[in-house]
């Protein structure tokens, strides 16, 4: 369960405050996979980052007793001059994994991301697709209550996209995801419920299909 209490979030711009959420109170029911929709700039990523605990409301609080992954996004999360392998080890250490668990996770990620010898090259030489392979494989190796995914499912070649989707489907038997995407098919496949961010309001839909319809409506 995730509870938003009087959450207000804005960015200061030259023209004044740009609101993303204005005094929103809302409870997201537990054990559902959530799709987040909204136009560019509506604040989807910011909302995700607030759930992940790396961005903060200007007013109000977000309360949850669940664990959240880091927000998987196209950029960030890696130390450029370290290899893929060392980055995976680094994240394992951040989460206090034992040496044995770390070894297991490194093997799992190496196998999943299929990068071959690139896995032992510095991350700064990776393309964004390669990075998201590692970061996706890594997030699947931990036991979070919620995995936060920001568009990353859309990258990579077709074969890898299919593979990630399959892996994620298997994973969400045990945990839940919160997914930001502009791909309606992915949202329909993966999510149960939908949240639409529009005009600094948050609308909850018990069926992801209704959320997609509403999203298409505002895009007309």
């Amino acid at each position: 369960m995730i509870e938003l209490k009087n959450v207000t979030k804005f960015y200061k711009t030259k023209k004044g405050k740009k609101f993303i959420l204005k005094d929103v109170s809302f409870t997201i029911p537990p054990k559902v996979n959530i799709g987040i929709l909204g136009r560019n700039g509506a604040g989807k990523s910011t909302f995700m980052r607030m759930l992940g605990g790396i961005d903060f409301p200007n007013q109000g609080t977000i309360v949850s007793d669940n664990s959240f992954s880091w927000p998987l996004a196209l950029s960030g999360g890696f130390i450029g001059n370290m290899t893929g392998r060392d980055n995976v080890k680094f994240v394992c250490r951040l989460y206090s994994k034992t040496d044995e668990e770390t070894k297991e996770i490194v093997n799992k990620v190496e196998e999943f991301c299929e990068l071959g010898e690139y896995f032992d090259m510095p991350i700064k030489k990776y393309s964004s697709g390669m990075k998201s392979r590692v970061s996706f494989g890594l997030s699947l190796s931990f036991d979070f209550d919620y995995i936060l995914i920001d568009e990353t499912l859309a990258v990579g070649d077709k074969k890898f996209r299919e593979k990630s989707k399959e892996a994620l489907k298997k994973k969400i038997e045990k945990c839940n995801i919160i997914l930001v995407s502009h791909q309606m098919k992915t949202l329909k496949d993966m999510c149960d419920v939908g949240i639409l961010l529009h005009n600094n309001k948050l609308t909850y839909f018990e069926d992801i299909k209704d959320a997609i319809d509403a999203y298409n409506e505002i895009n007309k």
Partner: protein
Amino acid sequence: MNSKLKKRKSVKIFKSVIFALFLREVKARFTSSQAGVFWTFFQPFITIFIFVYIHAITRSSEINANATIEYSIFLTAGIIPFFLFKSILLRSVGAFSANRAIFIYKQIKPIDTIFARVVSEYFFSSAILIFFLLIAYFLNYDIKIKNLPMFAFAYLWLIIFAFAWGLLLAIINSFYDWIKKLLDFSFLPLLLLSGVFFSLQTVADISPSIAKLLLYNPLIHFMELIHGSVSYSLDTKYVDYNYMLFWTFIPMGISLWLYIKIEKRIISSR
């Protein structure tokens, strides 16, 4: 639902984060470039060599081996802590911007990156100290330290002093990034003015008023304390502990207060 992750105690999280960041710093130093390792050990070595050389030629009339040995120990005792101070400041000032990408892991607080860099610089500094002691051992130098606990105390205090200033500079640097450049240029004058290669007594013998002026620099108090605790022929009568406390805990208070105020802003800035 699996809740293993959220039950980690905050002390354990802190330890894991510092350990992960520390290993990363050490690894970066020893793998990314051979030059990094080289400079870690040879920069202080070369500096000491130059000063010993200058010392030997300027006093050629009264040259004797014992004086040179004594002076090189005197220099080493000051230069290693000075380089530690310098590298803590230089590594801290850019710590926030260099680690922006990994702030997406919410357990990493910006201040942790500074802790980790202080710990790793301390680690390198200790390695250099051991390296120098080994050299001295093979050269059959007779090293007697007058007051080892006092030396350790001064060394530790210097680290705390450097941390306070490093954090303060890192915070200012996240708004005004010319601070880092300014800092790069300020170390040479600081090296010359901080009593690293002379004792204040020698200055006071020539000009008491200059000595008085030099004492406004808090770092010279640390150097006097370090030199006085190492060498039998020197004392610590110029060390003003209150002055050192002032310049440690005022910046510490200000930087921690500022940090608490802007921590969230540093994390969420992209």
